[in-house]
């Protein structure tokens, strides 16, 4: 006989709802402790290989509209390339690391730093915790520190002292963070403990984040005095050098991108070089209009490589041969003294567009298929730096006195352009403009000749003829 008393029914109901309360309590407890935020754009150019694209996100397509602007509150230098973790964009300024809410553009959090070069942070995971790893200190050639903070709580987890100042920025792959210093030393640091795994002493200065792919770390360096540029491939787990490319009078190389089994970098002799990623043997070269910045990296997709040089030229070349498919010239050359350090933006890929930030503050979107300009927006004075792609948003770092982060979203009511590069020949335009100038100058010269030619008979003897 099944008991049916009222007291028993209440007890049964309470028992039945108990699991629901328990489950709810667990969820609430988890939320209070902080579920690790998802990594969206983990480091310079999106990932350890620096391809400039991430397949797991739905990026915003042009045309764009500016969604928000976050001005750097503590200095007038602006930010390095940001990363995106959860719903926050993280960028390194000269005085602090900032978390900026992606939806509102408001400061979500701020972690003070002791100063030093403004370089790219990176995001990794260790033991279920998402960490933000960045370089702190290093002003006046003092040694820098590699610092890791919890992305959810912003508490410092560990700090690792380097032997010299660092301007390279950080890369993270798996359990290791990589950073180089100005003495040519590359450090591999365990992201869970902040301990050194290995170091490699090379030559010159390391000025860009190392690239990592298929168990190899690719690091470029330059020797200021000798003018040598060097690329090395090191074993990721041991730091053993696997191959090296070195050439004199190249001055410097760009950041390295690894894609389709090739390591690709640009140099100051205007050549982009592709090496077999495993052996280092040269595969192809592509001549650019100008030199490539050491703070810029090529972007790569299947079958194509996108490069941006210091003259504001973006080129698409074949990943197999280096043959130029198209070229678009923005004509946004930065002024001296050191233009290649000013031009920090690297091309990134979003859908069928390649985005590039320019030295004069413009953000441009070019069709990957045609090489024609699809959209262009001006953010005002101050160079644009690194670009990060989030779900439905494009984050651009801006440098200089108006420095900060700018968020762009798709503008459904905007229109796409289809403008060819100004360096493409337009026969009608070329001929028409020349013809106008020809007539004007020739006419002016003929008129001048009519007015100034001698009319008297005494002082206009022809030279070398008889009297």
């Amino acid at each position, binding site marked *: 006989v099944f008991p049916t008393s009222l007291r028993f029914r209440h007890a049964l109901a309470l028992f039945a709802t108990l699991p629901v309360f328990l489950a709810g309590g667990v969820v609430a407890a988890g939320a209070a402790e902080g579920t690790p935020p998802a990594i969206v754009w983990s480091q310079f150019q999106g990932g350890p290989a620096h391809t400039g694209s991430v397949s797991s996100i739905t990026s915003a397509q042009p045309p764009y509209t500016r969604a928000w602007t976050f001005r750097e509150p503590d200095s007038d230098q602006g930010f390095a390339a940001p990363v995106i973790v959860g719903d926050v964009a993280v960028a390194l300024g000269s005085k602090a690391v900032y978390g900026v809410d992606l939806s509102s553009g408001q400061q979500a959090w701020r972690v003070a730093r002791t100063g030093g070069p403004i370089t790219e942070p990176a995001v990794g995971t260790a033991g279920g915790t998402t960490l933000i790893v960045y370089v702190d200190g290093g002003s006046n050639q003092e040694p820098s520190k590699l610092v890791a903070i919890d992305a959810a709580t912003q508490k410092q987890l560990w700090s690792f002292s380097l032997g010299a100042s660092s301007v390279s920025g950080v890369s993270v792959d798996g359990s290791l963070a990589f950073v180089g210093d100005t003495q040519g030393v590359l450090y591999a640091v365990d992201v869970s403990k902040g301990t050194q795994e290995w170091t490699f002493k090379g030559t010159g200065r390391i000025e860009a984040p190392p690239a990592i792919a298929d168990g190899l770390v690719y690091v470029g360096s330059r020797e200021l005095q000798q003018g040598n540029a060097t690329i090395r491939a090191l074993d990721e787990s041991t730091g053993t050098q696997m191959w090296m490319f070195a050439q004199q009078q190249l001055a410097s190389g760009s950041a390295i991108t690894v894609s389709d089994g090739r390591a690709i970098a640009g140099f100051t002799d205007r050549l982009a070089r592709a090496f077999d990623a495993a052996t280092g043997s040269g595969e192809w070269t592509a001549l650019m209009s100008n030199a490539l910045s050491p703070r810029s990296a090529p972007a790569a997709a299947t079958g194509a490589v996108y490069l941006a040089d210091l003259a504001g030229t973006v080129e698409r070349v074949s990943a197999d041969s280096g043959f130029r498919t198209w070229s678009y010239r923005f004509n946004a050359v930065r002024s001296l003294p050191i233009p290649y350090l000013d031009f920090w933006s690297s091309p990134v890929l979003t859908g069928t567009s390649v985005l590039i930030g320019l030295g004069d503050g413009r953000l441009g979107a070019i069709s990957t298929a045609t090489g024609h300009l699809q959209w262009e927006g001006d953010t005002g004075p101050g160079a644009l730096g690194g670009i990060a792609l989030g779900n439905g948003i494009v984050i651009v770092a801006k440098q200089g006195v108006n420095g900060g982060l700018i968020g762009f979203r798709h503008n459904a009511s905007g229109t796409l352009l289809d403008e060819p590069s100004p360096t493409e020949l337009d026969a009608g335009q070329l001929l028409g403009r020349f013809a106008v100038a020809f007539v004007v100058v020739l006419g002016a*010269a003929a008129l001048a000749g009519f007015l100034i030619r001698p009319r008297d008979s005494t002082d206009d003897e022809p030279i*070398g*003829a008889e009297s």
Partner: protein
Amino acid sequence: VTAKKRRRRRPATTRAETVSIETDDATEIDEETVEDDGVVDHPPVPGILSALRIGLVAVTTTPLLLAIPFLFVFLLWTILVLLGLQVPPSGLVDAMGIPPISTVFDFGVAQAIFGYAPSSLFLAFVIAVARAVVLAILAGITIDVLEGSRPSMYGVLRGIRAIPTVVAVNFLIITATVFGTQLFVLLGPGLSLLGSLAVLIGGLYFLVFAPASAVREAKGIQESIRRSGRAARLRFPGGSHLIMVMVYFLVGLPLLLFAAGRVPGGSDATANPSVAVWALVLVATFVHVVFLAAFFARFIGIEPEIPDKPVRRARPARGAQPPARRR
């Protein structure tokens, strides 16, 4: 008799009594206009300003002297863009310069297309040869005009005859530039720049008269170049040759390039220069042709004084008084 009347009276095909002297090897080596009484008449050597005025009058009264280089510059630009050139068009201001001013342009565009590769040297040479053909024809017509004639087929033929000399001049300058650059790098950045400037100015100083010599005297490549060098070292009244060379060098390289960079759109890489940029390029081309005519006018004036053989200055005897300076 005015030049105007003379031109009306004496078309190019019925030139005044002209004497051609055949050498033993049957090469036509000299042409002189002579008076009826057999006395050779040469006008005085014009000073720098007078030479520039003569050049200005010659060029502005002869549209052909401008139309040819204008069209050459346009064709050159179009071909270079089709080859893949992506540079600001401001450099075109020196496309029609007198070598080695134009050599700077040749190397610049060749390296812009092919980078630091042997093919860029080849392209620079091809451009130089093409310009040499135009310059030689231009030289023939210019000297026609300076001699008081209208532009004629005779002048064009004399210019064509001078093509090998002008090509050789360009070859010499390119060779000197390439080897000079390699050599001067060893001296360090400052001295390297000075050395490169010295090559450019020296090339202009010694070789600028070679086309005129080839057109007027038809003495072959070597002798035309030698006579240009000997003429350069003569004492010019009204301002030395070096001063005129320096004036042209300063106008041709820094001044025109500076002006070109200031024209709206002049510093932007484009395949389709604006009307303003084209206008400046054509004005710069006009300036180059005026200087070319001015140099030729000075050469024609100094021509009788050019020694047939190199003059070796005798060393003063030990203890001898140095010669008094000419005032």
